[in-house]
């Protein structure tokens, strides 16, 4: 009798262990299932990035195949539950503008809200996104060393010296509209990714309409200091 019980206990024990080990992987799988079923229509989960304008024009949302090298996990989980527009003129500005007598304006009727996920779904999807790590060779882990710059000096560099404000808002309602807002970028993106992307946007995305600004190495870090300072401001 006791000989018969022993294997049962062992089997249950092994079963429990396997379940515990598999739990995080299941969250990953659940997240990946959601990504494939509900997100892959607008987001590329596999790559590569568009290599022609035709492919660029067909893209509906940010590529996610390197999401794990790009986004901050906590931000992803929170944003997915309460999505808020990051690019004032939509993902590809050309699709969302119209000419008027006073110049081009954003055609708001063409902008659609991003779907929201439940807390559990957002958790699983964020987990799955963090496992998508294409282009790791472009990232130097720990390259960014935290430091400080005043908002005034940061703005001077970003706007007057380099002209980046032409395309990016540095606070709500102030700056360019075709690119993503930068006053929240340090909440959204990993610092090492920002360094790499600003150094050579086309290495990540050959046809993206952000040009290589030929920034000096010293500029890259100072820009990230500036973005971090901006992200601490309360613009709401």
């Amino acid at each position, binding site marked *: 009798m006791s000989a018969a019980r022993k294997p049962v206990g062992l089997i249950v024990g092994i079963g429990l262990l396997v379940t515990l080990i598999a739990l995080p992987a299941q969250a990953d799988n659940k997240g990946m299932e959601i990504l494939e079923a509900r997100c892959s229509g607008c987001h590329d989960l596999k790559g590569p990035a568009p290599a022609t304008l035709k492919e660029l024009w067909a893209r509906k949302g940010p590529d996610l195949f390197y999401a794990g090298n790009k986004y901050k996990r906590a931000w992803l989980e929170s944003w997915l539950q309460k999505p808020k527009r990051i690019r004032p003129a939509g993902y590809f500005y050309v699709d969302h503008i119209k*000419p008027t007598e006073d110049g081009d304006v954003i055609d708001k009727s063409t902008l659609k809200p991003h779907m929201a996920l439940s807390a559990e779904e957002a958790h699983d999807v964020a987990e799955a996104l963090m496992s998508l790590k294409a282009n790791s060779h472009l990232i130097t882990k720990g390259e960014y060393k935290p430091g400080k710059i005043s908002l005034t000096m940061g703005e001077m560099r970003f706007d007057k010296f*380099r002209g980046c404000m032409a395309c990016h808002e540095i606070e709500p309602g102030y700056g360019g509209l075709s690119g993503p807002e930068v006053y929240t970028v340090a909440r959204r993106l990993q610092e090492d990714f920002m360094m790499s992307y600003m150094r050579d946007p086309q290495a990540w995305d050959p046809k993206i309409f952000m040009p290589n600004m030929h920034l000096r190495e010293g500029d890259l870090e100072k820009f990230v200091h500036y973005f971090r300072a901006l992200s601490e401001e309360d613009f709401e």
Partner: protein
Amino acid sequence: MKIKLTKSATALVTIMLALFPALAAVAGEKAEDNYRTYCWQCHGMNGDGNGINVRDMSVQPRDHTYGKEMASRSDDELFMAIKEGGPAVNKSVLMPHWDGIFSDEEIRDLVRYLRQQCRCEHGKGTSD
């Protein structure tokens, strides 16, 4: 021998596949398509310098339809401005380098496209 031939054939196909996108890239995009994708954001859908980004700019982007002004710029100056940005021709830092995206041939095509937009030639004024 058979195995060697199969390997060679596979290698050839791999090389061809690798080269195909490169060949496509060399061919370049049409100037009109490049202009729409990259230049509209500042120079506007009508090319008149009234793109969606101008609201808070300290310097208005060039009006590419203004023949008189555009005629005062040589093709080489326009080429340099696109390739290396405004400061390369003593103009605004708001015009960035585009050499990371356009090949020299694509930039030359863009200069030709600008000449169509302004209906002008360097030093000759407009054709209107």
